[in-house]
């Protein structure tokens, strides 16, 4: 079926890749690769852009996810909560070849959300009196001490969705939601790899998780990860 592309958001993968450039800040959605776009990750490796700052909840898995971009030495800085599943990432960090900034996972989610919804930061007591508080402003509210955590934004976010319509309304699938709706909001250009692209009106307004306002580019990648358990 031919989908009417009335907002010009539906593009080819190579058109979308024009937005991915050296030195940029890139959000890679997904959790251990679940909810990541296999096609766009592979294309970024193929394009071999360098000096990226990557924001992702983890480094993925040795088999899937952002780790492959890191292994390929395209990343200078990683902002994440966990790299334990990917030995290469930790090795590069210890060798001084990769800067890693750790945020507690809930804090990382809220920092990305804050960037996405236009807040200047959030206060949380998670991390108070731990290494996480280093270099952060402490603020007292109602007798409790909080850390001021700053918002995160990116030039480009890449994410997987189950379904997108031509306006960019998105539906995710089960636990492949994760950070995806937050990163869609937090990037100058959000690129969605949709398993299925449907015409305007084909998604019930109640089912929309990410309104099309937050989506700039829609591609159909079609790539599939090979999972560890397969």
């Amino acid at each position, binding site marked *: 079926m031919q989908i009417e592309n009335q907002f010009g958001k539906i593009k080819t993968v190579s058109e979308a890749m024009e937005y991915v450039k050296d030195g940029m800040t890139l959000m890679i959605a997904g959790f251990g*690769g679940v909810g990541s776009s296999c096609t766009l990750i592979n294309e970024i490796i193929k394009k071999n852009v360098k000096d990226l700052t990557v924001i992702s909840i983890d480094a993925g898995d040795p088999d899937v996810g952002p780790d492959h971009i890191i292994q390929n030495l395209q990343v200078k800085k990683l902002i994440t909560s966990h790299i334990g599943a990917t030995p290469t990432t930790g090795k590069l960090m210890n060798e001084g070849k990769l800067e890693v900034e750790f945020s507690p996972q809930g804090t990382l989610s809220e920092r990305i959300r804050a960037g996405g919804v236009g807040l200047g930061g959030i206060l949380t007591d998670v991390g108070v009196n731990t290494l*996480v508080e280093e270099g952060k402003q402490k603020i007292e509210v109602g007798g409790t001490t909080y850390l001021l955590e700053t918002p995160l934004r990116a030039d480009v976010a890449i994410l997987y969705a189950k379904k997108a319509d031509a306006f960019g309304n998105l539906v995710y699938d089960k636990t492949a939601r*994760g950070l995806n709706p937050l990163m869609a909001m937090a990037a100058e250009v959000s690129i969605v790899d949709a398993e299925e692209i449907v015409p305007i009106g084909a998604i019930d307004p109640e089912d929309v998780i990410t309104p099309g306002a937050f989506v700039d580019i829609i591609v159909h990648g079609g790539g599939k990860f090979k999972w560890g358990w397969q």
Partner: protein
Amino acid sequence: MGMAVKEKMAKRAAEEINNGDIVNLGFGIPQKAIQYIPEGKTVFFHAENGVLGAGQSPEKGKEDENLVDAGCVPITAVPGASYFDSANSFAIVRSGKLDITIMGGLEVSEKGDLANWIVPGAIVPGMGGAMDLAKKTKKVIIIMTHTDKKGNPKIKKECSLPLTAPNCVSLIITDLAVISVEKKGLVLKEIFDTTTVEEVKEKTAADLIIEEPVKVISYE
């Protein structure tokens, strides 16, 4: 030979879970607790990647690549489950709606400080969701061996490793004993039938309050 010690710790931890509880299980031994929930109790397992109501593993060949736990292992969803994004997932944690989290530990202090995110000398894996969970869950249960591989106590006056969260642990379940963290200090509540109160005291580098009789746990 009786039940393996890892299973005993998981079973003992499972006894802390009540009907209707919302529970997050860390990787490894904590996850075994799911098998020891008695029939008739409905428990909602929270996986921080975005599901409340995580169920057992699917049959081989019936895995759904988009339905996994926080360890990216395929799961199922129980009736009454819900999916949400990461911000809403940690909303459940941070708001205090999580009744119990069961996780591993490297060190626990007398005051219930927890260190479990930086392994000395190893690559730093990152804290993942452990800081959020440890800091904000109503009841934090730590399952760990009583001593490290060299025989050094892991329950200490003060943690020497970087903290995950201060003053957060409620209950410690080790291969030897069950110790509750209370205002008055660490209280030895139970010991497994493989040890003695004396051995537990010896292997603990903090004061233990002993209220006789200490219950002895014997699992078949």
